[in-house]
């Protein structure tokens, strides 16, 4: 068991990899009552085309299948219901699928041993039948429709769709009605057997636990099961171009206030930066220029262009990072041109840069009180970097103003697309 201090936060992370390949990460926090455990596979909507276990040829699957599989893991052969088991223990259970991973989770201050054993057991025991697969389609189609009524989901998904050309990140995690309707029991087993091998999975536990005990429980659980030896999964590599699929798109919906996203597709490999560097620098640069402390944001508010702050998010692939800026306004043209003008003339001062660093460091300290955020942080680290970063505060302290100005000079913001939602 490896133990590492998390700098300045009075926390430690314990790590262990079992013989079957399953990795375990634990951050004990004994001054709180609750325990949060997650069990994830490195399989999400991005992993759409691959060579299935014990086969030879690359095969593609219906869109939305990773999410469908997540729903179906709650089906048990003996008729028991995982939600009922957790509910009876007073724990919250859930699962979610993203572009990068699928996670099964529970939280609850009591019955940890029983809860974690059950988590491993139900996820490691698939039971798909033609009948239960059919039944799920109705539920998922309702879920798809719920997202279709939400203008922010529509805006975000359209932005991804129009920004990427080949990479499956362009497709909503949930898929669409046509694809979801095609999913079969056989497809589900193929995907399950390929990606749900312990060698492709990891457990993260945060909260009121003893790390040694956690590892013992999981070890014992896994020793009673047999798995095929894990072999790295050959997956399709997408030679994603830098240009976008479609530069402008307008959608009509039943809304009052028009909304726009500007999506900037940035190839960070070309900048010789790794993902952690580009994310750290780009967040600070974006925040200074269009965030709540920016002159632009203030001017847009004063001129009655926007009433609430501009918002922005990032999503990444192995090659690109997509910066999405969201604004709501009656003056779409004006807002769009002002943002573009600013993005073409990014500036930062050293005072601003140091203040944003201080603020980022503070946010790590705030986060460390929360076992849910800490668990998320570990999961994200594993997916992005394949290791837990314990030097976040030091890392931010060391970001250099000179490097930031250098990045601004080299940043290519020519590949972009706009999505607008207008009232019907």
């Amino acid at each position, binding site marked *: 068991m490896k133990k590492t201090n998390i700098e*300045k936060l009075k926390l430690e992370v314990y790590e262990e990899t079992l013989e079957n390949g399953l990795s375990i990460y634990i951050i004990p926090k004994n*001054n*709180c*009552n*609750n325990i949060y455990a997650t069990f994830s596979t490195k399989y999400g909507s991005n992993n759409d085309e691959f060579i299935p276990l014990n086969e030879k040829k690359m095969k593609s699957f219906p869109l939305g299948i990773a999410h469908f599989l997540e729903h179906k893991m709650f089906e048990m052969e003996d008729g028991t*219901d995982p*939600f*009922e088991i957790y*509910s*009876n*223990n*007073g*724990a919250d*259970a859930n699962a979610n699928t993203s572009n990068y991973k699928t996670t099964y989770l529970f*939280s*609850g*201050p*009591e019955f940890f041993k029983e809860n974690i054993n059950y988590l491993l057991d139900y996820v490691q025991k698939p039971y798909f039948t033609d009948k239960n697969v059919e*039944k799920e*389609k*109705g*539920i*998922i*189609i*309702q*879920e798809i*429709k*719920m997202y*279709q*009524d939400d*203008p922010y989901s529509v805006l975000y998904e359209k932005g991804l769709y129009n920004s990427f050309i080949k990479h499956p990140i362009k497709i909503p995690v949930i898929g669409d009605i046509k694809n979801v309707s095609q999913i079969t029991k056989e497809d589900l087993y193929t995907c399950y057997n390929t990606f749900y091998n312990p060698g492709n999975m990891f457990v993260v536990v945060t909260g009121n636990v003893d790390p040694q005990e956690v590892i013992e429980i999981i070890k014992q659980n896994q020793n009673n099961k047999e798995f095929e030896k894990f072999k790295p999964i050959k997956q399709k590599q997408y030679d994603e171009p830098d240009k976008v699929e479609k530069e402008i798109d307008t959608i009509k919906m*039943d*809304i*009052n*206030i028009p909304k726009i996203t500007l999506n900037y597709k940035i190839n960070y490999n070309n900048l010789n930066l790794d993902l952690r560097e580009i994310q750290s620098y780009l967040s600070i640069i974006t925040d200074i220029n269009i965030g*709540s*402390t*920016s*002159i632009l*944001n*203030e001017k847009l*508010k*004063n001129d*009655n262009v926007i*009433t*609430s702050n501009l918002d922005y998010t990032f999503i990444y692939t192995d090659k690109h990072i997509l910066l999405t800026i969201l604004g*709501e306004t009656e003056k779409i043209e004006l807002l769009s041109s002002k943002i573009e003008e600013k993005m073409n003339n990014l500036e930062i001062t050293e005072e601003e840069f140091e*203040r*944003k660093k*201080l*603020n980022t460091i*503070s*946010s790590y*300290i*705030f986060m*460390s*009180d*929360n*076992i849910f955020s800490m668990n998320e942080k570990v999961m994200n680290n594993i997916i992005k970097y394949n290791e837990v970063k314990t030097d976040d505060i030091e890392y931010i302290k060391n970001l250099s103003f000179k490097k930031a100005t250098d990045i601004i000079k080299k940043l290519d913001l020519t590949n972009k697309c706009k999505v607008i939602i207008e009232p*019907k």
Partner: protein
Amino acid sequence: MNYKKIKNGAYNIHLINTDKFKTISVRINFKRKTNKEEITKRNLLTRVLLESNEFYKTSRLIEIETEKLYGLMLRSSSTISGNYSVMSFESSFLNEEYTEKGLLEKSLEFILSFILNPEIENKEFNEKNFNLCSNSLKQEIQSLKENPDKYGMHKMLESMNPSAPYAINADGYIEDLEKITPKELYEYYKEIIKSDLIDIFIIGNINETQLKTIINEKLKINTLKRPSESHYVTHKKINKKSKIEKESGQLEQSKLYLGCKLDNLTPFEQKYVMNMYSFILGGSPNSKLFMNLREKNSLCYTVTSTYQPVFNLLIIKAGIDANNFEKSIKLIKQEMKNMQLGKFEDQDIEAGIITYKNTFKEVEDSAFSILNAYTSCEYLNYDTLDKRTKEIEKVTKEDIIKVSKKIHIDTIFLLEGAMYEEN
């Protein structure tokens, strides 16, 4: 964890001392009787006060200062808590151990300056900032329709009883907003400082003497205030038969709501039994409604029941296809009938008890959840977390059956979306 209520005449300080968190969290509440005409004003005021003050003239300068104060978080809200309307100012900042000496005083001074030193010009709020806030509130009110969940809920509550506090749109009304002037709002501000009931809740690793010194020095309000009456809304009329209302919206999915009135609950039922009822009926992914509507009949993705104690309401909500309307209603009514007939297991009750006990434990992990718990003790006569853990265990099957007969479906509301072939 150590709780202390310090009465100060014009306001109460509720101090919860604990070294559990790296932060100090504060909530300052202003409350008075709910009055529909004042709701928009109160909402606007919570925004205007945070938009600027005497020392920081724009929100950009405020944001910069919060960054210098190590990412201090500050927000405000206006909500309806039954018969009372509550304006809240909330803040959270890092403990001096993780920052620098003197930060507690600096942070408290910063927070209080928004309440005590607004930006006033010629006896009215600064017009530019006033207009910014007025516009953003206008957008917020208009966006109600963009959120089908919130919109449908509001329409349903309105149709239950248009003059009840729960039917008030907590964001406010465009007609009222358009009439408010910077001068009038400033007059209203002076009035609330004088006559609203003020409570300050604060949690963290804090020295009591130091805290009292800082607050007494900064917050010089001397008016004496009357003790309050109950937050709980009681229903004047309980209808024997429920009514059905429909409205069509341009939605993919229809939203179904059942609004139920609760009649004459005892304090024990109000605080414990109803929670258990709602948990078993529709409070978890293992609930009666979830199992029957979603798992057995694939009618919906979400179906939940929510108990709103201050309004004495139980609300059932489901996202369905419009042509499953009748079938869904029938199944929901059936499940409610089954509750009355006692068709649920001891195990369901045990699960509810464990869930609530665990929830109380989880509350202790979050500073703002702890503040919520103490706010409920103060406003709603809730028991302390320790007592609640003991009391919830006393709920019996008979209690739940008894309470199930006090639940009356008043309004069934459908926000109607597109019709689809049955899947």
